[in-house]
């Protein structure tokens, strides 16, 4: 059920209560189950955040103009003045407690965050300090994230998540740079620590707060990108003319599986797929990688990489996390995500069975079969009344057949006819699922 449906339900419930269609208790339970964010509050927050963003980026641009007609001390006052002003405003907003409106908290927190960035950038500019602009991001993130906690600012949290992912990617790429560099942070340690910096906001000290849908997407995307960067960092040979990332593909699959399997409470599990971006992004990344490994060369490299990855501590940490999350998912009956996550285990099962000089075909064929089994599982789970994804399963089967037909040694006529049959079958299945769901909703089926 989408956010629009939640809002529609919230609007209908008072009338249904009056007309006796639902009891007061039933309406309360429905409101709890299908909670809708207040529309006005969200709009106010967005307006507040946009206003602060414009002021803050304008401030950075004005300072970046470089007022070299002013002496150094005047420029330093210009750099630090906005910080003092925005801190005073944030203190006032914080002092108002619950009386402060969401847009006030968003605007104050974001303006102060941008003032911190402007101060750091200008000090760096005044003293002609070396280094790329991404070097400033680490400290900017560290001293700004408490504003997301205390002012409950989604905008600052989003900026923080983007910042830490960007910084992690930069550190990993610096390590891979054959020119080498000194002072590269070990992101295997730092990325998890920085990611944990969001915990005081989500889930918060009382373990109740959840990110809004937009923030969830950023949280999931930043986590996935950051973990992929850490996987690259862990596997690359530093400062080498020809950087080799042997082991990266498998660690990337494990990273995606960890994101996909991230534990949810009962309310989270009941939410529609569109509100679970970690499942969409983690699962999507896994499926795309698995589809690539249905070809011989990538499959051979993948299995070879297992031997490089297994001695790495980061690999074992990922395996432990994935195993822990998988056990929780199994207990909660999240079989669809388990079926997709299993794609990450194929290389470790196939590696001992493959000699170094062997062809990649056994693994590629295994991946095709496992993907087919996953697709069938996604369809079957929905038909059995569990949380499944019949359409995604059908799309996966169609993709598999298309890929195999594309590299098959048959005439264009046969390929063309096959594509027409697959396309027609896919559309028919899609129409059938739509009709089935409509009937199920009308008849009150638990599916």
């Amino acid at each position: 059920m989408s956010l629009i449906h939640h809002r529609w339900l919230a609007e209908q419930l008072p009338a249904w209560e009056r007309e006796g269609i639902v009891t007061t208790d039933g309406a309360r339970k429905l409101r709890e189950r299908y909670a809708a964010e207040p529309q006005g509050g969200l709009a106010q927050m967005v307006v507040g955040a946009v206003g602060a963003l414009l002021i803050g980026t304008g401030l950075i641009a004005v300072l970046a103009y470089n007022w070299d007609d002013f002496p150094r001390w005047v420029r330093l006052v210009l750099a630090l003045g906005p910080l003092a002003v925005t801190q005073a405003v944030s203190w006032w907003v914080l002092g108002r407690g619950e009386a402060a409106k969401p847009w006030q908290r968003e605007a104050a927190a974001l303006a102060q965050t941008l003032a911190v960035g402007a101060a750091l950038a200008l000090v760096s500019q005044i003293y002609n300090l070396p280094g790329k602009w991404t070097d400033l991001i680490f400290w900017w993130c560290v001293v700004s994230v408490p504003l997301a906690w205390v002012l409950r600012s989604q905008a600052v949290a989003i900026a923080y998540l983007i910042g830490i992912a960007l910084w992690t990617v930069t550190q990993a790429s610096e390590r891979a740079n054959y020119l080498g560099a000194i002072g590269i942070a070990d992101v295997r340690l730092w990325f998890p620590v920085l990611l944990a910096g969001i915990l005081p906001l989500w889930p918060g000290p009382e373990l109740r707060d959840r990110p809004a849908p937009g923030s969830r997407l950023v949280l999931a995307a930043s986590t996935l990108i950051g973990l992929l960067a850490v996987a690259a960092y862990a596997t690359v040979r530093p400062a080498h003319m020809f950087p080799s990332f042997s082991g990266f593909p498998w660690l990337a699959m494990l990273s995606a599986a960890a994101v996909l399997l991230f534990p949810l409470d009962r309310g989270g599990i009941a939410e529609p797929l569109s509100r679970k971006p970690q499942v969409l992004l983690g699962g999507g990344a896994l499926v795309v990688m698995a589809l690539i490994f249905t070809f011989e060369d990538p499959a051979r490299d993948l299995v070879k990489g297992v031997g490089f990855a297994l001695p790495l501590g980061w690999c074992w940490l990922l395996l432990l996390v994935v195993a822990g999350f998988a056990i929780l998912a199994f207990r909660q009956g999240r079989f669809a995500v388990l079926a997709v996550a299993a794609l990450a285990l194929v290389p470790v099962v196939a590696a001992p069975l493959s000699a170094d000089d062997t062809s990649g075909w056994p693994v590629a064929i295994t991946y095709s079969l496992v993907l087919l089994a996953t697709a069938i599982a996604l369809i079957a789970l929905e038909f059995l009344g569990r949380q499944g994804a019949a359409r995604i399963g059908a799309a996966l089967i169609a993709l598999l057949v298309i890929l195999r037909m594309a590299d098959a040694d048959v005439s264009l006529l046969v390929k063309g006819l096959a594509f027409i049959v697959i396309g027609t079958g896919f559309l028919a299945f899609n129409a059938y699922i739509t009709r089935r769901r409509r009937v199920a909703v009308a008849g009150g089926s638990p599916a």
Partner: protein
Amino acid sequence: MRPALAVFAVAAVAQWLLPLSGIWQHERVISRGTLVKIECGAPDPYDPLRGRYLAVRPAQSTVSEPEGFPDGGGMVPVWAALEAGEDGLARIKSLSLVPVSGPTVIALTARNSGTTNGTDTIWLAWPFDRFYLNERLAPDADKLVAERSRDGKKTVAEVRLLGGQAILTDILLDGVSIRDVVKQRAN
């Protein structure tokens, strides 16, 4: 005090400490450091947060490999003692792989850069590479430096050194700040 206010207070103090510690550190080098002048090149790129700058590239970018310099492609910290020549421009007199002290010592990083005329050489990364300029002046400054380079005239970086740390304070053209030269030309 509510916990949120206490957390905010700590964050606010950290937000001040970060730039202030940088200011204190760099002001100390500027006020107490030894002045050296280094020949350099300086094209004009852009930084999204800090605006336009001249990318300062000291002329002495490769030197003979010092004894004991490790093999491999990674960057290695080195300490260079500078000495002013007859033209007043500082050049590297000696390189050390361990920290050394002195008024004209500068901490650099270096990596192998192959062999030139039968001598193993290393490439040096200097601890200053940017001189920020007003966006009105930067394009003209870039043209000016390019013209002078074609005419064989030298561009000089004015640097303050203290405890191995370096702060770039100005870019000089015939002993005059590039800012003043560009402003004069604009007028």
